């Protein structure tokens, strides 16, 4: 293969030149999510770009605090108190940033639904699981049951949801789909009466209820023990096959990724480190951080100590180092690392690495730098830079969304 340096194109278009032809289901380009606190602005997500295609399972992996969950919340405008900006944030070419709260509500649950990390706290303790699913069905709006405030409150506090209603029927059906035994009875139970695994299945059923095109699963298995974990993951994959729904799987666990994902993005301190299809990533990890992660897989059973493979901790988001956030912990760090990060493409289409080691002006054996032509390198970086500054649409800081 030729090691001929190729000028990397702008991130946006380059995304679309990946495996499939038709436009991606979700396209995220240079996403920034910033929380304003009295301790100053916190860039939780700091320039993230990726795309998810129809029927694909896309993994985002990173340590806790790497901004992966916030990324997910930002997509649906659920990142309270944060200001979200991006060059591009499109679902089926609809600009999500342009949508107001009401419009977003239409998307949530219907087109994109979420599964949260902790099923214990993510289900409403005072509502039967059946109702919690049924209301999504109604919200999805093709059962023709009123979902006005009054109607809903009457159902909740007075009549209860009738078991014969279409929405309830569908809820039971869904519980069955996600493999809950005698769903008709279960539907009438409260979350605290179900096991952790059951709860997570309920969450999944709930996520399916609006039959969405994309399910964002945020650490869906962390709170569960290993045996259950496998079941749940398989459940998800089956659904993908069954309904052709795409899944964005957020996890800190590369092993999970290897089992489930088609493509994966590695995040660190709110920034992208590397993205590629799963096989490539595991066979040819280019980023030192990615390598670190992969080296540590054998010890996945425990999710705290596995980072011993990489010394040090994630930097405080308010005091992130100049340039590459990882350089303080990186063995291969060198002169360019304080320069702003840009994406460098590898041979594999869609395999991109945010690490100056792969600047064409740098010669390296993948672990160590042999020679750097600083002047040329910096110039190349600036080209990337320049290509980034265009007017970025942004969603204002909504604060709490209970209006």
């Amino acid at each position, binding site marked *: 293969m030729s090691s001929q340096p190729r000028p990397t194109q702008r991130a946006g278009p380059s995304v679309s030149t990946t495996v499939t032809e038709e436009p991606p289901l979700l396209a995220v380009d240079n996403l920034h999510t910033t929380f304003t606190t009295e301790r100053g602005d916190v860039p939780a997500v700091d320039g993230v770009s990726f795309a998810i295609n129809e029927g694909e399972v896309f993994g985002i992996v990173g340590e806790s605090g790497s901004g992966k969950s916030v990324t997910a919340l930002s997509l*649906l405008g*659920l990142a309270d108190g944060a200001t979200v900006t991006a060059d591009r944030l499109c679902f089926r070419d609809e600009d999500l940033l342009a949508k107001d*709260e*009401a419009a*977003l*509500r*239409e*998307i*949530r*649950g*219907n087109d994109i*639904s*979420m599964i*949260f990390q*902790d099923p214990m*706290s*993510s*289900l*409403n*303790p*005072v*509502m039967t699981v059946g109702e919690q699913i049924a*209301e*999504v069905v109604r*919200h999805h709006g093709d059962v023709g049951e009123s*979902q006005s*405030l009054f109607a*809903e*409150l009457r159902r*909740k506090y007075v009549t209860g949801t009738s078991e014969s209603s279409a929405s309830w029927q569908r809820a039971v059906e869904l519980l069955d789909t996600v493999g809950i035994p005698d769903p008709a009875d279960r539907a009438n139970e*409260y979350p*605290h009466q179900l096991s952790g695994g059951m709860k997570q299945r309920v*969450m999944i059923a*709930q996520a399916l209820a*609006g039959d969405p095109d994309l399910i964002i699963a945020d650490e869906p298995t962390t709170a569960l023990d290993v045996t259950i974990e496998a079941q749940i993951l398989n459940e998800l994959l089956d659904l993908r096959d069954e309904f052709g729904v795409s899944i964005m799987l957020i996890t800190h666990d590369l092993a999970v990724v290897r089992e489930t994902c088609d493509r994966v993005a590695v995040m660190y301190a709110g920034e992208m480190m590397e993205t590629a299809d799963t096989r490539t990533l595991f066979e040819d990890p280019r980023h030192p951080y990615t390598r670190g992660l992969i080296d540590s897989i054998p010890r996945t059973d425990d999710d705290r100590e596995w980072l011993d493979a990489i010394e040090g901790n994630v930097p405080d988001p308010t005091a992130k180092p100049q340039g590459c956030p990882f350089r303080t912990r990186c063995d291969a760090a060198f002169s360019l690392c304080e320069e702003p990060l840009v994406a460098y493409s590898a041979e594999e289409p869609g395999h991109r690495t945010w690490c100056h080691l792969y600047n064409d002006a740098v010669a390296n054996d993948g672990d160590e730098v042999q020679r750097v032509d600083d002047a040329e390198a910096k110039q190349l970086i600036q080209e990337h830079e320049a290509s980034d500054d265009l007017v970025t649409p942004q969603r204002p800081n909504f604060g*709490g*969304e*209970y*209006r």
Partner: protein
Amino acid sequence: MGMRRYIAKRVAHALVVIYIVATIVFFAVRAIPGDPARVLLGGDASAEAIAALREEMGLTEPLYVQYIRWMGRILQGDLGTSVFSDQSVLQMLIGVAEPTLSIAGLGMLIALLIAIPAGITSAVKQYQWEDYVATTVSFIGISMPGFWIGIVLLIIFADRLGWVPAFGYVSFRQGIIPWLKHIILPALAVGLPYGGILMRMTRSSMMEVLNEDYMRTARAKGLDGRLIVFKHGLQNALIPIVTVAGILLGVLLGGVVAVEIVFGIQGLGRLLIASIQRRDFPAIQGAVILISFVFVFMNLLVDVLYTSINPQIKYGGSE
């Protein structure tokens, strides 16, 4: 089934508490200096007459005998006869309970009607003007003596504006409107401070709920804000409030006493104070028992209600 056993257990407990209260009160009132016989016969009655009456009232017997007698009667539901009015204490209590309970009831209603919506609003609109207004008002409400609110209301609405009568009580049997007119000011006087506390409660409880994961879930489902608050939030937020509402009854009952005085209403509180001043032992005991009874059982009721709105508790109580 669990529920029934739980209630039975709590009732038993409540009865024990009331029994102890009753006992304490029995001896407490006898520790109050002053002789009922003398009060009854008037200051200048002859020593003989007084001695005779004390005999008749059974005050000459040793304390433990009196106590046993009294307990015996209590168990037959006989609270004795008022020293002062020759009237069965039970009748007296029934007579005065209505106004007091009317005021307390309406007061609590007012409190809840103000507190819950205001609390929710200021939680949802946290750090916006609605929140600041509600919070300030509630703080002021908490900081005023109820009876003083009563005085102010009386001056404005009864004395100056003459919208409602300033004194007394008419039973609802004589018509709802007059009844309301007589108790609205007292009810406000007891309700506002109480509402203040409840509102603060609702606010903080609601704010906790708003931060819960399941509320985020609800939003991720695409439900609209109001629906989320009232369908997913409210019930959860109310769980602690229900308990509190019960506890606060004590505060409220206490408030009613002073308010009755302000509005010259012949209620339980008034009877109690008067009876203490007259050393009317049976009446005092009756009143205190009744009050503790209401208090304890309201809380029992609240506990049951609590378990019913919170599916997570098995009837082991709210411990």
